[in-house]
């Protein structure tokens, strides 16, 4: 049975990279059936880039009236693809260049892993590389304790608990059962919360044969020691969201361990006290912040 696969790309002010992303998505050997591009109210020349794809029969462009963050953009785009009847939804950022064969490998790897495991698996993600071919530190999937279960049987698949929204494929049933990413997170930890929500049904799988390049300026993971005035806004979302997740979806002890990790990171990086205080407030805000998943409508 042929699957209807939709790609969802969320963009915000990355006009210089977006065209290549879309070209690489549309050039996949196993073609996607449609591409939903969500423009989060970009203020650069993104509209001009998107105009080139306006008449493409597979591309649908959704321009949002305001920036809803990556979380809002992915929720909107995934809901749209779901409503159009997609069987699988492949999502990525606007600076993710899928390598040839990336989506085909994801589909094949996911199917092979399900077959071997004898159960449905709620997502399949690619290996994310940086521009120089190294592993992209921000986008490492977290393996399960039995991560090599499929490797020992010759599959190039690793079982994982979570991954980032940089080339990850969700089967329709997972979205039907678990809903959409939390829009309210806006940015950061939305991918962790979502994939961890989905593993209630079973582990995810990282398909080693599926690779993409994440075109970041620097190859560095999230480190609380790096907090400064310029990037503070992102860390504020990150701390609020993770505190909320640990407290409400895990338990207060998990939240306490996160607080300890946060404290050690900030101290280790000698982050100014005024920024630490702001992040502490965000932590407290996270305890009160508990958004609930929404579900897409079935239309077709």
């Amino acid at each position: 049975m042929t699957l209807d696969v939709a790609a969802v790309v969320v963009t915000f002010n990355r006009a210089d990279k977006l065209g290549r992303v879309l070209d690489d998505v549309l050039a996949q050997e196993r073609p996607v059936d449609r591409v939903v591009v969500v423009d989060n109210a970009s203020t650069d020349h993104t509209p001009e880039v998107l105009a080139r794809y306006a008449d493409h029969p597979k591309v649908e462009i959704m321009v949002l009236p305001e920036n809803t963050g990556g979380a809002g953009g992915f929720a909107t785009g995934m809901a749209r693809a779901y409503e159009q009847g997609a069987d699988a939804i492949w999502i990525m950022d606007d600076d993710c260049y899928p390598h040839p064969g990336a989506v085909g490998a994801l589909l094949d790897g996911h199917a092979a892993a399900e077959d071997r495991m004898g159960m449905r698996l709620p997502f399949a993600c690619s290996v994310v590389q940086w521009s120089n071919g190294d592993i992209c530190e921000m986008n490492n999937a977290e393996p399960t304790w039995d991560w090599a279960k499929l490797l020992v049987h010759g599959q190039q698949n690793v079982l994982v608990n979570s991954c980032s929204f940089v080339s990850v494929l969700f089967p329709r049933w997972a979205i039907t059962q678990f809903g959409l990413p939390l829009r309210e997170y806006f940015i950061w930890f939305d991918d962790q919360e979502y994939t961890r929500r989905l593993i209630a049904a079973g582990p995810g799988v990282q398909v080693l044969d599926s690779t993409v390049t994440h075109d970041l300026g620097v190859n560095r993971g999230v480190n609380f020691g790096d907090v400064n005035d310029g990037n503070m806004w992102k860390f504020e979302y990150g701390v609020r969201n993770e505190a909320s997740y640990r407290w409400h979806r895990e338990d207060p002890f998990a939240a306490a361990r996160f607080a300890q990790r946060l404290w050690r990171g900030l101290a280790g990086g000698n982050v100014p006290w005024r920024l630490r205080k702001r992040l502490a407030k965000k932590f407290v805000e996270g305890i009160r912040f508990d958004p609930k998943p929404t579900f897409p409508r079935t239309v077709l």
Partner: protein
Amino acid sequence: MSALDLPTPQHGGPLFTVTTEPRLFSPLDERETRLLAGALTYQTLVHPGVDVRVTVTRANGPTPPSLTDQATQRVEWPDHREVVGTLGVRSTGQDPTTTTTKDVVVDLGGPVDQLSGLVRLPGRLNDVRNAIRARAPVAFDALRQRQTDRLENRRLSRPLPRIGAFERPEHTGASGQPPAVLFGMHWLELGGAERWAAETVRMARDAGLQPIVVTDRESAHPDIVSDVFDGALVIPLTHPMTSDDESTLLRTLFDRYDIRGVHVHHCTWLYQRLPWIRAQFPGTQLVDSLHVLEWRTGGFVDIALRLSNVIDEHHVISPQLRDYLVDRQNLSKTKVTLATLADLTVPAAEEPPAADHVDGPLTVAFVGRFTQQKRPYLFLRLARTLHRRLGNRVRFVMHGDGELGDEIRRDHARLGLQSVVEMRTPATPVSQTLEEADVLVICSDNEGVTLTSFEADAHGVLVVSADVGSQASVVVDDLLVPRHPGPLLARTADLVAGLVEDPARLASLRSAQHAKVAAFAALPRARDWTRDLYERWNS
């Protein structure tokens, strides 16, 4: 005394012969004759080779027919019944197996119009419940919807038990008897799901198969006279039957016909017997058609899921049901077929007439049965609110009748809406109401996909609907309103008021609606799926 013209099946000849000529003291109408034929078929099938002496009665009052239940074995009956005739019958195809005669009393029930009222459960608690519902339907409904929320959450969080799968034995081959399809229906009142079920009966007949129809719900079966059932073997079951009779009925049906497939629509009785049929008649294909997810009771979808291991294919009419069965309940995608009824009542591809509302009041209509599910009382409240807000700039038509009919008419008067809401009975064609309407409001608290939505679109009528079932497949996003009564009324009132203020928006919304309906209509059609299925069964 008058002659009795009993219908016979299209294939294989009659299943019984008349051994004692009928003596009729009162003429039977077409409906009663067909009910009697169903009863005689049943009684002779469960008593093969036996002389069956039949006393036929008719009830005065709201009593459903008694055709196959254990009461037919007793030669006494309540006072409110009159005897309308007697006759003797015996099954064909067998030598007489006994010299004794079996006596049965078949009651054809009361008049149709006395059997459409609300079924009131006995007990003081139910009296109180009914009184509250009649006096304060919106508050009652609000509580009911909250209960639905709880039941919905519970249903989604609990796995359903499944009957065990078993290896299907080899196909036993053709029996030389006429090929047939056994249908299970709720009753012979042809609205919604039954309309589609009746259509499949017609298609089976057209495909050269003998349709055998059993129903399992009490009813006067007013549509048994429909030409859809001409040539079909129709047995309206009445419960409780004896378990011996039940198995004998099925066994003799399978003896007399080469039943290639069983197609269950809404028939709990037949669903429950599918495992036995699968075990005893493994060559028979078992399929069902599912229409609506009942969050409150589970309904037929839950029964189908429980029995899924012995069902070969589930036909669903809405994407919502497909997602529920495949995504939520983990049925194989190859076992669930989505095929819609978009063209059941209207040609699906038809372009709607151009928007022609220019002057005059905006006409807002309700079309549907007056039942708890359709919530007609909400439409009356909507009309009151909008009339207060907009006066004569909006007019209302309420088209239908049903078990809440009396309560709705009382409500209509009590709310002082006699000059505001025009009431129309089903005697008026629905098409006439839709011709006049600009907006159709669907207040239902549960649906699959309403056939009325397609009819409305074909007439260029904009549909505002509660966001239930698969209504999102055919209704514009902006015109979907919450299921809970308070938010439904507030949101619908705002939407209609907005259209009165900005009639130009009607055209753009109609266009968006038609695009959505057309996309839905492009999905596979139920007629095509069924035609292919029956052709396979008859090959």
